[in-house]
């Protein structure tokens, strides 16, 4: 029932500005905390350096950076929610996790590099097992998926700006 309404809300959504977002975000966090939907999360004593660091930052009010670390929901239904924004870089990051220690460690090590691998892909940096190169074409395989396809060109169509190679799985 009411999927219609659900889609309707999608249509009437309006674009909101950065300013409004942060304003709303702060209000949301405040009110959710009062309603006990979220509560501050404190990592266990003796946890890794990365998880302790995120916790410390989330408690600190600085001009450059703001963040929060919360437990969202209760008991077996809960996840740990970290969010942080960086005024200088104008970035907002968040993660929700079941395994906070592993997530914090991964985030601290990869937060600058993990996002844009698809955009700035350099063919020379792709390991040989994940690519196939011809004289004037190349194919890159998703390293996160098991490779099931083999590619080779069967047609060459000329296009204004580039050559399109059609290939088939063998």
């Amino acid at each position, binding site marked *: *029932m*009411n999927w219609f*309404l*659900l889609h*309707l*809300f999608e249509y*009437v*959504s*309006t*674009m*909101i*500005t*950065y*300013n409004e*977002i*942060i304003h*709303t975000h*702060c209000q*949301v*966090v*405040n*009110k*959710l905390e009062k*309603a*006990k*939907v979220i509560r501050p999360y404190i990592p266990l004593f003796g946890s890794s350096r990365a998880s302790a660091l995120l916790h410390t930052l*989330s*408690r600190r*009010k600085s*001009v450059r950076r*703001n963040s*929060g670390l919360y437990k*969202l*929901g*209760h008991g077996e*239904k*809960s*996840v740990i929610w970290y969010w942080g924004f960086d*005024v200088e870089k104008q*970035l*907002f*990051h*968040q*993660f*929700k*996790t*079941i395994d906070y220690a*592993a*997530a914090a460690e*991964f*985030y601290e090590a990869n937060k600058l590099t993990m*996002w*844009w691998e*698809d955009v700035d892909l350099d063919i020379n940096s792709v*390991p040989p097992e994940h690519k196939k190169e011809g004289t004037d074409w190349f194919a890159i395989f*998703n*390293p*996160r998926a*098991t*490779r099931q396809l083999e590619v080779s060109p069967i047609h060459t169509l000329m296009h204004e700006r580039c050559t399109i190679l059609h290939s088939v799985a063998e």
Partner: protein
Amino acid sequence: MFMERSVTLRFYHKSFKDFLCDPTRSGSFCVNTPAIYCKFLDHLIQCHHHYASSYAIDGSSMYFLPLASALNLLVIPDLVPAPGIISSSTALSWPHGTECADSYLKLWAFSGLSFRLSCDDSDFCRFFEDIPFAILQRLADVDYRKSLIVDRMLWELEDSSNALVFGIRATARTSSHTAFECVRTKNFDELVPAAFIRVCFNYDYLQ
């Protein structure tokens, strides 16, 4: 393609949407009001529990990840039908009829519902101040863990990295137990910094 053909409702003419969104024209039929939103949210919470109770978390699946990592074999939690749930079709209003399609539709519906209960949904943020405290408190019972797992499963199935954070386009990355999301500068309003800092530091939200 399958999703577009089977479940997406679209307007044929913009004038109907304009009518429904303008309270001076549609009066009590207007969908763009806090009262309707709260009714809608209440219904979403009920639906969420309906779907969440039909799933169980299975932590026994082993996945091989072809990454250059010492830990190639990972245990990744998945959602499976809860004991007693035989078919995915029963949970759906308009089932497709085959288990393969319906199990996917059900994951998709559960993910969509749960997303709308989070502050990443732009309507949730827009009407947040109007949500009665009693409804807000019910959000504490939402199954955030199953919601996180369903998102990860769908991102993997669709090989997608598109997400929304406060209604704004964002990039997502997932690992076995975590969903990471990032909003980049270019998706934010350009005129921000001064107002941003003013709003942030007048707030005492971390206490």
